[in-house]
């Protein structure tokens, strides 16, 4: 390939920025290769002649497609595993909302059980969501799932560790405090990041993802800063409620919405 010919491909590669990142990641090398083949066989002028229309129409179609989570005629019912994961997510969200009944009404055991169910449900939904999101962008989906799983798992371990320790503890009365701050921050930040990635990938409902981001960040902002009866408390509690609703919506979507058919091996 001459330097001049390489220049054509470099310009074409630059234009591929019009496509969504996950599409580019998967197809840009092949598209540049195809463009180079086309230019070699038909000449640069002909290859470039159709490029603007081809780029604009197909890039626009890919951007619009990102906003249509399932745009295929061939879709499958959720698997039993998806249904269970979705149901766990729904319960997880409900567990957060239960907190609004008043944590004083909960015994320490119920309080901690609520947190265990919440983190397990969140992990189940993240794993189920990742299976769908990986089709849209494997690396990005994984980068969203891992922090959320780690954050929730860490919090789960902390709760189990606390309830396993000898002696009676009150709801949320955990020690050492710094460890719980780290665990809580990991949980909220992990969930917020998962929400952002979900928002970006567009495979699942963006409103749920947005609610997850907002709810997580509000909850993070409220850590250790609960001013009883103040407007700040109301905002933070609202954030946790939004967070719970987001898991419920994601859980429902995972459990009920049809998914794209996977590739089938040749008969």
């Amino acid at each position: 390939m001459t330097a001049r010919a390489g220049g054509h491909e470099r310009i074409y590669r630059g234009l591929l920025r019009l496509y969504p990142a996950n599409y580019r990641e998967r197809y840009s090398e092949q598209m540049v290769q195809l463009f180079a083949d086309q230019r070699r066989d038909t000449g640069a002028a002909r290859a470039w002649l159709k490029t603007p229309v081809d780029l604009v129409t197909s890039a626009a179609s890919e951007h619009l497609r990102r906003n249509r989570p399932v745009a295929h005629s061939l879709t499958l019912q959720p698997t039993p595993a998806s249904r269970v994961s979705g149901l766990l997510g729904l319960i997880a969200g409900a567990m957060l909302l239960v907190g609004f009944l008043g944590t004083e009404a909960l015994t320490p055991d119920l309080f901690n059980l609520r947190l265990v169910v919440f983190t397990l449900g969140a992990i189940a939904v993240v794993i189920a969501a990742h299976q769908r999101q990986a089709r849209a962008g494997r690396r990005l989906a994984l980068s969203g799932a891992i922090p959320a799983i780690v954050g929730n798992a860490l919090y789960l371990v902390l709760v189990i560790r606390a309830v396993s320790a000898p002696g009676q503890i009150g709801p949320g009365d955990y020690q050492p405090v710094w460890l719980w701050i780290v665990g809580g921050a990991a949980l909220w930040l992990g969930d917020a990041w998962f929400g952002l990635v979900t928002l970006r990938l567009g495979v699942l409902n963006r409103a749920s993802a947005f609610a997850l981001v907002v709810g997580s960040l509000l909850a993070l902002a409220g850590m250790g800063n609960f001013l009883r009866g103040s407007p700040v408390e109301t905002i933070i509690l609202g954030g946790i409620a939004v967070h719970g609703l987001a898991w419920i919506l994601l859980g429902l979507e995972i459990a009920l919405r049809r998914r794209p058919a996977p590739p089938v091996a040749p008969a």
Partner: protein
Amino acid sequence: MLIMLAIGPEERHGYAIMREVARITEGATKLGPGGVYTTIRRLLEDGLIEESEERPDPDLDDQRRRYYKLTGTGRAVVASEARRMESLIAAARPWALELRQPA
């Protein structure tokens, strides 16, 4: 459908698919790289085609190339669509032939 027909029983890379589409439509449809790969992506997601695991010999072909082939479902869809079009043509043939004849 055109791209699935262009792949046919073979394993083809993007450029070969593009050329085959132009050939079977007698030049009426000329796809660009964007048109080819956005369609390939949709067909992959629908499970109608799959990427071949075999890579070209580096001495014979560019390693960046990816080859695609029809899945079992894809072949069934092509066969079903061909049958559907055959029945449409069969239904249209009697009066379409009449139209050709001078009044």
